[in-house]
């Protein structure tokens, strides 16, 4: 039996100092590199032949070899030891140091340790706040009595290692969750003429960090704008991944049809079918292509705030629905918000309105009152900032917060829309034109004729103006008491193709009062005029 020579308080103090230095030196290392460095030091200080760390896999309740010095095979072969069995399993199960003076096949499960000829072992648990993170153990090829001081030293190392690992593993998870969450938020909000959008996501401060809040905004095939605001209970990686699944499924369901109630009902079935037992609340709605209304359903989610020139109110859909997948199956009831020019919609998660020890209705009322002094017609990002600062009032958010603000622009006096010269963009141009004509109170039959003529002229630009490289089409409009004037421009060369589109010009001429076509080297300009009186 060899004496360790480290049994004096002076040695303990030396180690303490060494570890403090190490803390700083190792601060930037990854969990793996950190463990490697620690084990090298442990081997030197304790004068042992092997040192290893096994970390707990909580899903299987097994210890997995993650780093080793002297018995590297343990890691290479991915040794897994069930908690409660063998030497390391015993350390983890009983959360106390274990010493084995003479290794045999009854007290050590891991064949590598036996094959290496390890005779004595000392293991201590890696503990953080009473939770077992793993086990660190050292071994000697010669018979050795590990004394109280050895145990104390190894525990000191284990304490430092556990703390550093905990922070790193937690940081790592937090980083992954944050990355994941970010990929599920829209990179850019869609650009629809007549609507302006702004959004913000704030992670919670403190240990909670990234949560399962998300928002989404996308244009449906019908030209409608889908808006979603959801919240998966909980935090971290799990909440972020559930959020991703729900968000993608909602996108898929919503392009099948324009009824929000159908999409959310399907989503609820999916959540139930796949045993997603996290609480998921959702507000989902669609603004129609004509921008006349917002139809929405809420599954346990706070209602949207509607801001008009006459005040602020929360939209009701007549019934409080439970979170996704929790209620008995029944069709969701849709709420409808008329969307006149100048109307704003504010969608949010409960982090914005909930304060500890306060009922939700108090928070909602605060939001209503904060919103009364916000200029929604100005810069929308500024409006979001004003709402946030008014609600947080200098506090850090305790829960994560998502906000989506949508503003229906005032009735435009003139129109100016430019799109890529793609066939699918023709519908975008017609929708913008219809909205503008409705805003200008142009009689419906006249509006139809203007859309017919302009649609035809735009189609001509898309079909004929450009080669395969493509280009752009611009549609502008102005209107006085007697006449609507619409101008279609492209930057291409007029190519006379003997296609059946010859009917196009006949249509344009029939529904307008004058047509001017100006073909130049830099492009084609078609000016259409139509009197306001119906024919």
């Amino acid at each position: 039996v060899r004496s360790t020579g480290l049994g004096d308080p002076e040695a303990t103090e030396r180690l303490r100092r060494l570890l403090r230095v190490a803390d700083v030196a190792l601060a930037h290392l990854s969990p793996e590199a950190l463990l490697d460095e620690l084990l090298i030091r442990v081997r030197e200080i304790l004068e042992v032949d092997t040192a290893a760390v096994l970390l707990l896999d909580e899903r299987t309740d097994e210890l997995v070899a993650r780093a080793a010095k002297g018995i590297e095979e343990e890691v290479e072969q991915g040794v897994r030891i069930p908690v409660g069995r063998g030497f390391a399993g015993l350390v983890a199960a009983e959360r106390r140091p274990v010493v084995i003076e003479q290794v045999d096949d009854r007290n050590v499960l891991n064949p590598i340790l036996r094959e290496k000829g390890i005779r004595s072992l000392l293991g201590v648990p890696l503990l953080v706040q009473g939770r077992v993170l793993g086990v660190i153990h050292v071994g000697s090829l010669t018979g050795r009595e590990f004394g109280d001081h050895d145990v104390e030293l190894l525990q000191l190392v284990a304490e430092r290692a556990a703390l550093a690992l905990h922070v790193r593993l937690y940081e790592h998870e937090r980083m992954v969750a944050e990355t994941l969450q970010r990929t599920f938020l829209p990179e850019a909000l869609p650009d629809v003429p007549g609507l302006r959008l702004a959004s913000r996501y704030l992670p919670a401060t403190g240990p909670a960090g990234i949560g399962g809040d998300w928002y989404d905004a996308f244009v449906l095939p019908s030209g409608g704008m889908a808006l979603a605001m959801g919240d998966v209970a909980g935090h971290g990686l799990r909440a972020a991944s559930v959020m991703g699944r729900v968000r993608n499924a909602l996108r898929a369901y919503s392009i099948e049809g324009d009824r929000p109630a159908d999409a959310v009902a399907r989503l609820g079935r999916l959540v139930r079918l796949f045993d997603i037992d996290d609480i998921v609340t959702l507000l989902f709605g669609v603004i129609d292509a004509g921008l006349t209304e917002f139809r929405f359903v809420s599954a346990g989610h706070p209602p949207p705030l509607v801001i008009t020139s006459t005040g602020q109110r929360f939209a009701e859909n007549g019934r409080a629905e439970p979170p996704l997948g929790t209620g008995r199956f029944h069709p969701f009831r849709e709420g409808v918000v008329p969307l006149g020019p100048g109307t704003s919609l504010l969608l949010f998660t409960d982090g914005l309105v909930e304060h500890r020890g306060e009922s939700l209705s108090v928070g909602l009322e605060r939001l209503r009152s904060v919103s009364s002094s916000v200029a929604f017609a100005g810069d929308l990002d500024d409006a979001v900032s004003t709402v946030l600062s008014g609600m947080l009032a200098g506090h850090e958010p305790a829960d994560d917060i998502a906000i989506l603000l949508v503003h229906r622009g005032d009735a435009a006096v003139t129109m100016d829309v430019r799109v890529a010269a793609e066939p699918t963009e023709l519908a975008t141009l017609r929708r913008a034109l219809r909205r503008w004509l409705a805003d200008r109170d142009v009689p419906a039959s006249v509006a139809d004729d203007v859309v017919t003529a302009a649609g035809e002229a735009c189609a001509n630009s898309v079909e004929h103006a450009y080669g395969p490289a493509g280009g752009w089409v611009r549609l502008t409009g102005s209107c006085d008491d007697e006449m609507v004037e619409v101008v279609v421009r492209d930057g291409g060369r007029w190519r006379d193709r003997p296609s059946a589109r010859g009917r196009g010009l006949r249509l344009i001429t029939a529904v307008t009062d004058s047509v001017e076509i100006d073909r130049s080297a830099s492009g084609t300009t078609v000016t259409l005029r139509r009197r306001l009186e119906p024919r």
Partner: protein
Amino acid sequence: MTQLATLSLERIETTAVAVVSGEIDFSNAQDLGARILQWVSNEDAALILDLTKLSYTDSAGINLVFDVAGRLREHGQAFRIVLPVDSQPWRTFSIVGVETQIPIFETIEQAQAGGDAEPGPSPPP
């Protein structure tokens, strides 16, 4: 694949029925035409194109119906269109006189009943 328009296909005895709702323009007309013609079998005596729920068409829609009409004529099959008066598509069709070459009816029942009529010079009042 745009969903600017939706197409549903039915068959009533020996009449193929194609219902187009939404909008027709340069972006989807060719595809719609191909899918409609595919639906018509050799055994069908006629095709009814129901445009009751069509809210917009440009000249690409006119080309579509003339193309379909031409193909059906080659096979000796009748072609009728259902289109309510005063809709944007109806006015667009009437500008170029679609109804002088393809019979247009106000309802699907009239289109079915008018099955014996030859393509007439004008739609029923």
